[in-house]
């Protein structure tokens, strides 16, 4: 075949891969050829279909895609699907070799595929999502050159493919006549698990034959015996709830994470890669079956109270239980979230600047801050960039000039209220009200923090002056409770009234809508949050729905002042600079909300918290939340949610800039 040689090239890293398999999970391997290269190398494997430029988007940004080759091969009358990323060739140099390999799909037999969902939007790229019988799914495969229809047509020639009655874009593989059979098959097809952990590249033993294609078998795969040694599955009779769960999982393609995670774990055992991203090395490695039983155990111990929909599953390891976390959150962040780095220091920052002081690559800088934050003394220099007060491409001289111009402008603005005489004030209710509110609030903002401590504290006076000046600068918005919470760390960092004022102004450009009179900015964010929870934890969403908690008012304080009251002062500054990088998304704060809620999901649902109890519980979490792991979890969730996550957040949701300014997303992220 003409493509043989190029395939060999594509898979030239497979020696490492095979080695890792041998090393890390030898006990699970029954594959007789350890030096695997490609399916076509295997005796009798026949290449059925090959498609180049099929990509995976590991992040929400299409610019970070990983391109590869999609193949269908046939062996012993079984059809296999594989997707191998191109080596050393990606649109984004930052994606490590490991990142790319992470997604590799190695010959999955179609006996283990439950359905293929196709997306062929008028605008944008066509893609398919392959869902396995277990409910696991692979990340969307984008057909950059089109051809989804052709792909499905070819699949159809080899396996039984039926269009779903509920959704015309879903093609069910191995469809069975009755739901009972379907359920049984999805439960008993044990081979999905080895596949998910990347093991069943080939049939595990000689037992697989054409009847495993599914349509003829009564739903019980004859490979059960070969896999039962993993102690995975107990026989289980038909359970409609479970069937529904499978459907739910399938619905949210992102539950794909299972597939990704297990693939990841396979690679985390791999010592073959030289320049391995550190995050993979320190992670505990579980084999998939072990993990499954862990979930069940944890669930059992964590929540003595029974779940609403869960009556009988304590013993049965199951990934599709309704109340179980579809993302298996505890492990999620280990896989996706990078460990935090030490904060960026002065030397490191200088390396980002050219000789005139421009930030050469703003995205790299933002990435660095995202993963480690900033040393305190350096914040004064970096925050103005993050907040948008300074342009990344400004020079030292330009910034110095801006500083002096803005200083004068600030003085002029401040003069406006300073010149109000007592007689004028008497006739100026709005001013008196605002001043009264500000006076009240500044003396109760962070007063136990050293910088604002004590009577007649000059910094407290500066805070009042800035807020009053702001209420004149933005008279429409005025002063709102919560603003002093935002200003306090900014003034502490900038140590200069005018600079702090302009940084605060820049922040309010994005977060001002939080304080809108109609509360629209808050409602939009709470709505987006509910959508994200629906996407990332549908059982929790259902729970909130049933308990009349969908307004998410219990997260109001979190969002209004971006967790200022939830963490101690230094931690708040760390969180804010991470949020302000807008590195992965403008809305990381919403993923932070999801991360915290998921952290406590079993408590919330296990204790059957109603709205009041939940509100109290959330309020009292203040000071109890670990920041680093929360950021990691949020990062993991954001990556995992990918485009579906981004699509859950309506355009213009704060802190996105308002829609009418025409900037919905950071320019860096534009798709070319």
């Amino acid at each position, binding site marked *: 075949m003409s493509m043989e040689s190029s395939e060999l090239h594509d898979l030239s890293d497979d020696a490492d891969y095979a080695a890792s398999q041998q090393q890390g999970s030898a006990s699970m391997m029954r594959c007789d050829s350890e030096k695997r290269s490609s399916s076509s190398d295997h005796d009798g494997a026949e290449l059925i279909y090959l498609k180049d430029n099929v990509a995976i988007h590991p992040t929400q940004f299409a610019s970070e895609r990983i391109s590869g080759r999609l193949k269908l091969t046939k062996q012993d009358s079984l059809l296999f699907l594989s997707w191998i990323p191109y080596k050393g060739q990606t649109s984004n140099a930052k994606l490590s070799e490991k990142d790319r390999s992470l997604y590799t799909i190695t010959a999955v037999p179609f006996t283990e595929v439950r359905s293929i969902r196709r997306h062929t939007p008028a605008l944008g790229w066509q893609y398919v999502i392959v869902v396995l019988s277990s409910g696991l799914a692979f990340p969307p495969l984008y057909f950059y050159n089109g051809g989804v229809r052709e792909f499905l047509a070819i699949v159809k020639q080899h396996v039984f493919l039926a269009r779903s009655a509920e959704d015309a874009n879903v093609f069910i593989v191995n469809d069975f006549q009755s739901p009972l059979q379907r359920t049984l098959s999805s439960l008993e097809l044990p081979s999905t698990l080895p596949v998910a952990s990347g093991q069943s590249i080939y049939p595990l033993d000689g037992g697989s034959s054409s009847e495993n294609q599914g349509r003829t078998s009564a739903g019980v795969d004859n490979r059960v015996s070969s896999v039962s040694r993993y102690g995975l599955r107990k026989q289980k009779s038909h359970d409609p709830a479970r069937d529904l769960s499978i459907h739910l999982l399938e619905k949210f393609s992102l539950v794909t994470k299972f597939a990704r995670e297990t693939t990841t774990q396979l690679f985390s055992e791999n010592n073959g890669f030289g320049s391995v991203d550190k995050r993979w090395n320190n992670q505990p490695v579980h084999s998939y079956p072990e993990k499954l039983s862990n979930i069940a155990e944890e669930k059992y111990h964590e929540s003595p109270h029974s779940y609403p929909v869960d009556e009988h599953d304590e013993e049965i390891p199951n990934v599709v239980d309704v109340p179980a976390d579809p993302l298996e959150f505890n492990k999620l962040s280990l896989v996706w979230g990078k460990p935090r780095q030490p904060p960026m220091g002065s030397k490191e920052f200088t390396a980002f600047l050219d000789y005139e002081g421009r930030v050469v690559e703003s995205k790299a800088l933002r990435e660095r801050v995202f993963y480690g934050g900033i040393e305190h003394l350096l914040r004064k220099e970096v925050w103005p960039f993050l907040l948008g007060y300074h342009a990344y491409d400004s020079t030292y001289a330009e910034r110095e000039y801006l500083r002096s111009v803005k200083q004068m402008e600030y003085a002029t603005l401040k003069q406006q209220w300073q010149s109000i005489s007592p007689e004028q004030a008497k006739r100026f209710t709005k001013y008196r*009200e605002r001043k*009264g*509110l500000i006076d*009240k*609030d500044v*003396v*109760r*903002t962070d*007063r*136990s923090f050293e910088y604002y401590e004590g009577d007649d504290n000059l910094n407290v006076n500066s805070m009042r002056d800035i807020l009053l000046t702001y209420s004149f600068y933005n008279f429409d918005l005025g002063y*709102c*409770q*919560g603003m*002093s*919470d935002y200003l306090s760390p900014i003034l502490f960092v900038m140590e200069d009234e005018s600079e702090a004022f302009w940084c605060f102004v820049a922040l309010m450009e994005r977060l001002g809508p939080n*304080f809108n*009179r*109609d*509360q629209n900015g*808050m409602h939009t964010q709470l709505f987006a949050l509910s959508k994200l929870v629906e996407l990332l934890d549908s059982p929790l969403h259902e729970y909130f729905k049933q308990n009349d908690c969908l*307004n998410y*008012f219990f997260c*109001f*304080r979190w969002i*209004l*002042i971006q967790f200022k*009251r939830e963490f101690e002062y230094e931690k708040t500054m760390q969180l804010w600079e991470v949020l302000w990088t807008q590195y992965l998304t403008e809305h990381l704060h919403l993923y932070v909300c999801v991360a915290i809620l998921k952290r406590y999901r079993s408590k919330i649902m296990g*204790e059957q*918290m*109603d709205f*009041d*109890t939940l*509100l*109290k*519980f959330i*309020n009292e979490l203040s000071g109890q939340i670990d920041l680093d792991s929360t950021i990691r979890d949020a990062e993991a969730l954001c990556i995992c949610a990918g485009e579906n996550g981004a699509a859950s957040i309506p355009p213009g949701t704060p802190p996105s800039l308002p829609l009418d300014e025409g900037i919905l997303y950071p320019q860096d992220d534009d798709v070319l």
Partner: protein
Amino acid sequence: MAGYRVEDDYDYLFKVVLIGDSGVGKSNLLSRFTKNEFNLESKSTIGVEFATRTLAVEGKVIKAQIWDTAGQERYRAITSAYYRGAVGALLVYDVTRRATFENVDRWLKELKNHTEPNIVVMLVGNKSDLRHLLAVPTEDGKSYAEQESLCFMETSALEATNVEDAFAEVLTQIYRITSKKQVEAGEDGNGSVPKGEKIEVKNDVSALKKLGCCSN
């Protein structure tokens, strides 16, 4: 505190809201009553909080759930949801700031808009310890309360003056209305409010008026 489960032993659960302008001392009244704490530098309230305390009223165990809301008008749109189910309210002003007393009218309207018409309301003039700064004479508060059929009390969360009494008074009034209603309902053959249930006060103008309000 008994965790987050609502199973502790009590006869009635009453929800009471604290309302009034920003900085009049709502949060400190709450912490004084529920935790016997006072903090001069307590932060402004963002969103909504609540705390509970259980106390005995006329031989019954009452669990009081006291809700505290942000004072700024801007947040009322979102906090209004929290009025749901309230059977009592403490409408607080600051005796040293006349403007906070002048706003009482608006708060009362707001309350009437979001709650049952006959919830027990007490007007509370807080910060009575700052006698030298008094800007609202006791008589003003009292006569306004009479005119609007509200209970009235001057308190000092700082000195813990009348705080206990103010809450106890409101809770007692609520209890009396509740039990009276139960008796009436019993006579009508409708049964009584189940033990431990949250109750609502409906159409009890006469009951409230008869009982008289309050400990002037």
